[in-house]
């Protein structure tokens, strides 16, 4: 059955409206979880607030396992689902740059929109910085084009890399996540608390 739009079960004309509704739920969840606050987000790196890790890992696990069940029940054709292409060199460089940007800015793009929406001026400035960064990247593209295209592995999956089944990978992922949550819970009194 699914995915619905790629198979035209839902007319692509609905694309933008669906995008808006999905975004609205996304924004509600981000803000209600506390991601409109940069200090709450960066707590994950300094040990005073682990909300980012809890929300992020739980979301990945729910969606990952959910998709495997959908596939198992024949509700979705996973071959029609977009798998982000891997450009090894560019992803390593890009991920590193984003990591530093995270520490400096305290937001990532999605959370900066959540912060901007409730009046956080630092979030608005972060978003404007992002605009400028993408502009700079595009203008300087001839200089970085080689790196940008290097190490092209296409839509490679992690289970192809590791040579294990998707179910087994999801099982390991969920186990690792639960262990991590257990550790966070066990040592909950050891972590520093700060007023945000």
């Amino acid at each position, binding site marked *: 059955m699914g995915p619905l739009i790629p198979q035209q079960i839902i007319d692509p004309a609905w694309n933008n409206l669906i995008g808006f509704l999905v975004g609205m739920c996304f924004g509600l969840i981000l803000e209600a979880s506390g991601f409109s606050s940069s200090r709450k987000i960066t707590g994950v*790196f300094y040990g005073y607030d682990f*909300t980012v890790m809890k929300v992020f890992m739980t979301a990945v696990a729910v969606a990952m396992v959910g998709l495997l069940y959908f596939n198992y029940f024949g509700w979705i054709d996973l071959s029609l689902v977009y798998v982000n292409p891997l450009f090894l060199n560019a992803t390593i460089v890009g991920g590193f740059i984003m*990591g530093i940007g995270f520490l400096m800015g305290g937001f990532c793009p999605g959370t900066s929109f959540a912060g901007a929406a409730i009046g956080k001026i630092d979030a608005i400035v972060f978003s404007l910085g992002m605009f400028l960064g993408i502009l700079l990247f595009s203008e300087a593209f001839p200089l970085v084009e080689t790196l940008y295209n290097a190490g092209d592995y296409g839509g490679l999956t992690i289970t192809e890399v590791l040579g294990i089944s998707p179910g087994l990978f999801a099982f390991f992922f969920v186990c690792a996540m639960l262990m991590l949550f257990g550790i966070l819970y066990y040592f909950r009194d050891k972590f520093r608390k700060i007023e945000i």
Partner: protein
Amino acid sequence: METTDRSKKYINPYLGGVLLGLLLLLTVYITGRGLGASGAVKNAVVASVNEISPAHVKHNAYYSQFISDDVNPLNNWLVFEVIGVLAGAFISGALSGRLKWKVEHQPGIRWRTRLIFAAAGGMLFGIGSQFARGCTSGAALTGSAVLAAGGILTMMMIFGTGYLFARFFRKLWV
């Protein structure tokens, strides 16, 4: 104070994670793609530059991938999704009494310092997300959920770099 207004509290993070995971699952089921954020800013950049100089966009090997003659770059799923994010976050903030103009920063630094680093961080995130073909939403979150090697690598790089270099930016936050 003991009597903190409960309406200002955030939801349980595990509940937030389950809701976000279900939303992502539903989004992939409907659209065959997942959530995103940085892509919308890219489209806004392309549309802006195209407004100023269409010829420049045509001749730039990067911009030109994202334009076609009949569709405006702003008429895009992700752009509408991000407008939705703004609306949804505004509603949540309004319901919880969190709507307020504010520069949030650690009391030990000046607000100007915070804004300079916010701008720099945003710039880096903008650049990095182009290299990695997505940010925390599109690459790390969605990519990991669909088992994309690129997504999982992006997640590990962003958070790994964060933990490795956190000490150098400690004064900004703690």
